[in-house]
């Protein structure tokens, strides 16, 4: 893969108004731009990140972070780690399920365990915990009831 | 032609049927209580404590490392103390909850005193779910000979190591 730096420049030149930050080898994109950027990353002939390998989230004291690992099967490059940040209270991030189908269950899982609301997801329900469970167990402040 | 594949498959099964009468390879069942497989030397099941001379004097020094490193936290150790309340280098109680233990063998790996090892014993059925599977010190302690019997290779290596240690002159006592 060409360097991340180049990708960032390419992205910003192709999509004016989109700002991205490079951090620890990850591309950090603001949540408002994310869906557009996702479409670009998938369709751009230069990268064609057609394979969304993993979607997950991390709970930091001040923010929630969705982490995406992208690969390109066609170009055999990857991984490109994309981070999208949101606040812990509402925690909304646009869903990329329409772009990569593999996000469907993984976003449900991230919603279930971390409480990231993926807007535009076709069927955002809990997947591993049961319906009606009130908490998001992977958050750092979650304490199991009988502990 | 339709059917030949099926017939081929049936040939395989009937071959296996007859082979089961002639070849050990085709009848691998071991009739368990009467026949037993010998355990592999490295087989690990549940941990036990080793003592050298007497059960009152185990190798364990109650350092609590295994209890801390145990992933499912099934080990509980209480350090013994003498009459004045000064902690002693031996456990007062050493409990392992076999119903929680997951046989990972990490306790054995991290033990700096070679005091805890994984046993070969596997017939551990009990009537009680909780108390009967909570193994206390008395049930956990086994002589070094037992260890030598089940894992001769490791036992020789460790015995040699311990012997080398004791042969070194004891560090001069302070004060």
């Amino acid at each position: 893969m060409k360097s991340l730096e180049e990708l960032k420049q390419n992205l910003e030149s192709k999509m004016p108004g989109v700002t991205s930050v490079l951090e620890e080898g990850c591309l950090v994109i603001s949540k408002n731009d994310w869906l557009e950027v996702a479409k670009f990353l998938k369709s751009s002939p230069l990268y064609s990140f057609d394979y969304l390998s993993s979607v997950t989230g991390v709970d930091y004291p001040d923010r929630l972070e969705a982490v995406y690992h992208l690969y390109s099967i066609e170009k055999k490059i990857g991984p490109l780690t994309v981070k999208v940040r949101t606040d812990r209270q509402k925690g909304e991030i646009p869903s990329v399920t329409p772009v990569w189908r593999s996000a469907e269950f993984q976003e449900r899982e991230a919603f279930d365990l971390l409480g990231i609301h993926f807007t535009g997801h076709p069927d955002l329900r809990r997947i591993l915990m049961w319906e009606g469970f009130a908490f998001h167990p992977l958050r750092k402040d979650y304490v199991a009831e009988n502990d | 032609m339709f059917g030949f594949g099926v017939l081929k498959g049936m040939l395989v099964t009937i071959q296996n049927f007859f082979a089961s009468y002639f070849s050990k390879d085709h009848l691998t069942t071991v009739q368990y209580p009467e026949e037993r497989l010998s355990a592999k030397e490295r087989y690990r099941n549940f941990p036990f404590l080793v003592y050298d001379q007497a059960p009152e004097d185990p190798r364990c020094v109650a350092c609590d490392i295994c209890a801390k490193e145990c992933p499912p936290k099934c080990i509980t150790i209480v350090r013994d103390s003498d009459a004045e309340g000064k902690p002693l280098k031996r456990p007062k109680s050493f409990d392992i909850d076999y119903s929680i233990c997951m046989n990972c063998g990490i306790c054995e790996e991290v033990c700096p005193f070679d005091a805890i090892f994984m046993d070969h014993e596997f017939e551990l059925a009990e009537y009680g779910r909780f108390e009967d599977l909570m193994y206390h010190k008395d049930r956990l302690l086994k002589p070094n000979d037992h260890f030598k019997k089940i894992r001769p290779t490791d036992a020789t290596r460790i015995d040699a190591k311990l012997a080398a240690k004791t042969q070194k002159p004891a560090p001069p006592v302070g004060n």
Partner: protein
Amino acid sequence: MDQLFVNLKHSILIFAGNFLPEWAVILISILISVTAIAVFGPVTMMYLTLLERKFVGRIQNRFGPNRVGKWGLLQPLADGVKMLTKEDIVPKGADHFAHFLAPVAIVIPALLVFAVVPFGRNMVAVDLSIGILFFLALSSTTTIWIFVAAWASRNKFSLLGGLRSVAQMVSYEIPMVLSVVPVLMVVGSFSTVAIVEAQSGWNWFVLTPWGLIGFVLFFLTGVAEVNRTPFDLPEGESEIVAGFHTEYSGMKFALFYMAEFMNSFTISAIVSTVYLGGWQGPWLPGWLWLLIKSYALILVMMWFRGTLPRFRVDQLMGFAWKFLLPLALLNIFAAGVWLAFARPVNYLLSAIIVALALFILYFANRPDMPKKRVYRYAVE
């Protein structure tokens, strides 16, 4: 030896005739036959379960039951005790009456068909002039009870199993009846005894071209009729849990099993009667020959069970309607030709017809048939 059981019965009757009126002797005669069947049926079933478990066990490279008694010979009794002492659960909302009735009623036809099986020379309970028809008629009633059981359970899996069973039985009934027709044509009688007698002296029907096809057809449809692998869709445990007997436990469940195994036995016995010369055979007594032939066929059924996966519903229907049915019809034609011509020519002609039929059906069905595939590797 051959007439061992017949003579036994006879001497009992003569002994009874000394001091009993004639009608009582007839009653005793009936009772002896009925008791013999009523004992033979369930005992056969019990040991068939053991046989199946042992045989399939060996196929699968394991022992099978071997703990209760020598070679597990008491296993069926242990199973029986277990079944009897098991809690009988009727689902809430089920139709209790029908739920109870179905397993009981399903055993009756299974026992009744034993009446027309000629176990040996003079060893048939009733020599009905319509023997084969009687067998076909009674075995078709099983469907109703399977369906009643399925429906009374109030379980969706049961219901699916019931629907499948009806569809399957209706489809397989037709080729089954048609596959017997050639024999009826040749023998000119429905009577099972007459059919066996027509095959005396190694004139087994299976040794004729149409007989070979008829035998395979009859056997396959028979396997389908008793819901055994690969036609065991009504109870397809991998899809619909246990099909129509999902909600049955204890003795009711055992009754379904009893019916199934007794039906397997009677099917095998009837197939050997119709195509394999029944109790005809050299050296050994007749009844032993029939048992040998029937058990051989049952072992083939178990062999199927140990080897084959199950058909899918539509494939099952397709197999019956697109392959078995036309083949059975053409087979009747072959038998007709065989009857019409003299000895050496008729074999040749009917063999040609049968071969042509298979050939045509093979090509007609080819589009639906699975194909072998060639795989390739990714290029570096």
